[in-house]
């Protein structure tokens, strides 16, 4: 990562105004969004939107032709181009033909995308943004930090300062007064402007209509007062039928700001009369700028289902810490990373794609059903394919692909690490590695890895079923006791555990860094080692490993072109199950009994990203812990990422650390002396965090806790 980028992150996370405003908003948003969707079938709604938008995206030419024919029949002039420069020239030409000296604009990301304001101003035309947030940004000479709330990073004092300069009067930071000043200032701009420029939230092919949504009412004035109206519409805004407007109108305000509907919606079809009786000139510009290329890309065509609500930003644990400016482009957050990679260039996303921790929050709430984490992974893969991995990473992955060497090094680390170890933790590391232990201690590498310990575990004879245990690196080399717990529990249910010694890294670290060939080799080695066909189950107590085994191996091998492995990958995927799901099944089937009548006290549970959002498991561990005698007290944001994200916490410790602090705080707020989770990675992060701050909260894997309570 570039130094300036790292510096911009440090600046952002230390900007209390920014993180305060974004943090407060994200907390309120979660509650309010749920309320806005109350009584609605969100899955059905987003299914419809994804469907209708996908249809339009796969018929872009047809949509554009139909839209053009219908809008022109209604009297609008339609200009279609793929070139941002041509858009600007066209607007300038229309302005010159109409003697335009000043323009008023309502909010449009498409105009930001092509930097229209600077172009018009350079050509002597005064441009006034009229959305309050956009106007603030314009006065400050900044870029929007959020798609829907462009000035969310600024305080009322900063706004008062800007407005005071603009109106040449000392203004206080009273918000209603500031808004009144904006009303007065902008009203005179509206009344004198000869041209209004808007975007378009929706474009309807069948009727040639554009739909504009605002809360302030500025789009109504922009489209009413000036005699010329130009709407700049990205061609991803198409829907085919007029009725397709309804689901978008239903979801967009709910997802954007948790409103049932924006204050104003305007559906404009052809020019209307001006208030002096003349006919308005209505120009609609359909802008491509690589959108149709995107629509043809099987991995990215889904991006055209985006309705630009910004909810992916609102729920992102990273965005609420860093805001939009670190993205360095017009579009920000998860969707912004993808749009930047396309509308600008792939290389431009090199740094910002690394901000995604792959927690999957955004995918849960996206009304267009975009899989943003997956598209960001694809960007990583293409970046690596284009420019290769860094030398350091290459060296690491070279080791990971050689199991003996990799495991040999881990064993060596157990000895070498001793210099820094106190108890079972590494509390500080020298020099450039010190960031890694600044906010959380690291676990010491176990003196005896699980693979060695396993041979000494005595298992009952004659078990009717067999389970292959896939340990994963963390349990194998840092937390072998978790593996021992799992064996104990499964034995009680009459399941013999086998541990194939040839199993190796699940490939997730390589995969999440874009090194698909490395991940594919890991997948093949593991498929070979685990011999899934000989067991009833393949079980893992690490959700990331479980996801690798039952979701990723097939996809990775297919992408790497190693199709000969697909059949075996499928068998493995079908047999793979996570620890809590398997144990819950065994308890329900009466094969496993937890000790009755225990009162073990208060506990809180942390949902790991992959377990909750990929494997869809959240109730099982809670029910098991309750059954064992724990009283579960839910923490705030129980399913928000802990900031570990595999190598993420090492690459971006400045972001990982505050996310962890928040998690630790939320755990402590419950008053529970104990927190459980199903992921050894989360244990590493959270246990290390508590150790570092000297807290007494105990951090355990669900397997360890249940092993103490099986009969």
């Amino acid at each position, binding site marked *: 990562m570039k130094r300036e980028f790292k510096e911009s992150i440090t600046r952002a996370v230390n900007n209390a105004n920014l993180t305060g405003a974004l943090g407060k908003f994200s907390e309120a948003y979660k509650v309010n969004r749920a309320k806005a969707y109350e009584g609605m079938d969100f899955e059905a709604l987003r299914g419809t939107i994804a469907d209708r938008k996908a249809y339009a995206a796969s018929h872009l030419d047809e949509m554009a032709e139909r839209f053009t024919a219908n809008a022109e029949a209604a009297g609008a002039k339609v200009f279609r181009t793929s070139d941002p420069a041509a858009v600007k020239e066209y607007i300038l030409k229309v302005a010159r033909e109409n003697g335009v000296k000043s323009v008023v604009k309502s909010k449009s990301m498409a105009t930001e995308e092509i930097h229209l304001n600077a172009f018009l101003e350079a050509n002597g035309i005064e441009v006034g943004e009229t959305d*309050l*947030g956009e106007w603030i940004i314009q006065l400050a000479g900044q870029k929007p930090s959020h798609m829907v*709330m462009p000035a969310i990073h600024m305080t009322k004092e900063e706004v008062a300062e800007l407005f005071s300069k603009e109106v040449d009067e000392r203004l206080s930071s009273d918000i209603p007064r500031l808004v009144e000043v904006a009303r007065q200032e902008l009203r005179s701009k509206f009344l004198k402007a000869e041209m209004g420029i808007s975007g378009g939230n929706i474009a309807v092919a069948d009727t040639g209509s554009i739909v504009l949504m605002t809360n302030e009412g500025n789009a*109504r004035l922009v489209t009413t007062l000036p005699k010329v109206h130009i709407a700049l519409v990205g061609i991803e805004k198409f829907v085919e039928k007029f009725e397709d407007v309804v689901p978008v109108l239903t979801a967009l305000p709910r997802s954007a700001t948790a409103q049932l509907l924006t204050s104003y919606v*305007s*559906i404009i079809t052809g020019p209307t009369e001006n*208030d002096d009786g003349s006919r308005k000139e209505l120009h609609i510009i359909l802008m491509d700028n690589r959108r149709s290329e995107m629509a043809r890309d099987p991995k990215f065509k889904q991006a055209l289902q985006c309705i630009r609500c910004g909810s992916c930003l609102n729920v992102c644990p990273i965005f609420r810490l860093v805001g939009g400016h670190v993205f360095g482009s017009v579009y920000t957050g998860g969707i912004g990373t993808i749009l930047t990679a396309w509308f600008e260039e792939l290389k431009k996303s090199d740094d910002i794609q690394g901000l995604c921790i792959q927690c999957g929050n955004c995918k849960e709430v996206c009304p267009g059903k975009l899989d943003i984490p997956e598209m960001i992974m694809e960007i990583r893969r293409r970046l690596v394919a284009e420019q290769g991995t860094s030398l350091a990473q290459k060296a690491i992955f070279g080791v990971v692909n050689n199991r003996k060497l990799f495991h040999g090094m881990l064993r060596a680390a157990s000895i070498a690490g001793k210099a820094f170890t106190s108890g079972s933790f590494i509390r500080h590391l020298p020099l450039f590695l010190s960031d890694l232990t600044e906010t959380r201690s690291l676990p010491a590498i176990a003196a005896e890895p699980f693979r060695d310990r396993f041979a000494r575990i005595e298992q009952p004879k004659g078990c009717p079923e067999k389970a292959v245990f896939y340990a994963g690196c963390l349990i194998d080399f840092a937390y072998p006791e978790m593996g021992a717990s799992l064996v104990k529990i499964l034995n009680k249910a009459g399941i013999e555990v086998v541990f194939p010694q040839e199993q190796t890294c699940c490939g997730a670290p390589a995969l999440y860094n874009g090194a698909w060939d490395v991940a594919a080799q890991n997948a093949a080695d593991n498929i070979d080692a685990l011999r899934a066909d000989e067991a009833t189950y393949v079980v893992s107590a690490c959700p990331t490993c479980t996801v690798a085994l039952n979701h990723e191996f097939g996809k990775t091998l297919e992408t790497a072109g190693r199709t000969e492995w697909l059949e075996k990958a499928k068998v493995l995927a079908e047999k793979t199950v996570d620890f809590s799901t398997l144990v819950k099944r065994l308890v329900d089937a009466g094969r496993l009994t937890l000790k009755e009548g225990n009162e073990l006290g208060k506990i809180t549970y942390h949902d790991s990203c992959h377990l909750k959002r990929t494997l869809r498991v959240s109730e099982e561990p809670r029910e098991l812990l309750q059954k064992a005698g724990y009283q579960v007290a839910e923490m705030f944001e129980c399913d928000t990422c802990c900031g570990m994200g595999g190598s993420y916490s090492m690459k971006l410790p400045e972001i990982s650390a505050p996310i962890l602090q928040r998690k630790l705080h939320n755990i402590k707020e419950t008053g529970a002396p104990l927190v459980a989770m199903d992921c050894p990675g989360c244990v590493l992060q959270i246990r290390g965090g508590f150790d570092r701050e000297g807290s007494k909260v105990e951090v355990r894997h669900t397997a360890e806790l249940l092993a103490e309570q099986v009969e």
Partner: protein
Amino acid sequence: MYEQFKAKAEGVGAEVHRFARETEALEFLRALLKTEGTAQAGGPVAVWAPGALRDGAGKVLLSLPGITGAVTREAAAGARIGISEVDWALADTGTLVQDQSAPEQRLVSSLTELHVAILRSGTILSDKLALLSKIDPRKSRYIAFITGPSRTADIERVLTIGVHGPKRVLILCIDETGVAA
């Protein structure tokens, strides 16, 4: 349907009043015009865009001082009150819907501080889906949805009313069917 509409509209900051007959609504309007400012230097205090009530039983009000039916940009920009007669309402979101292809309809409902919207109880629909069969963009060039007053939260996420459009939306809901309707 009316009760749901009223609750939702009030939820977004609109005020809703119900009248059995047109004459009662007109009386209310007359009183409102009186209290909401008679004296204004220069132009009119209130502008009333064309509609069945204005051009029917409401005609008498147009002769009052300070109110005009001649809706120009200047008159609307100077007036405090804008009156329009809307076509539909949506109960599930508290939304008013009107064909505002005629610019006067937009001027009175966007430049003024207080928008008085006259609605017929019988035109309240359940939701957007129910509206679909009633409106046709090919015939109505500017279909406007209005849900509460103009709002912004662009400064520190604090909800503030009346940034560009009306600061107050007053809905007069009349049960009696309009003559022209």
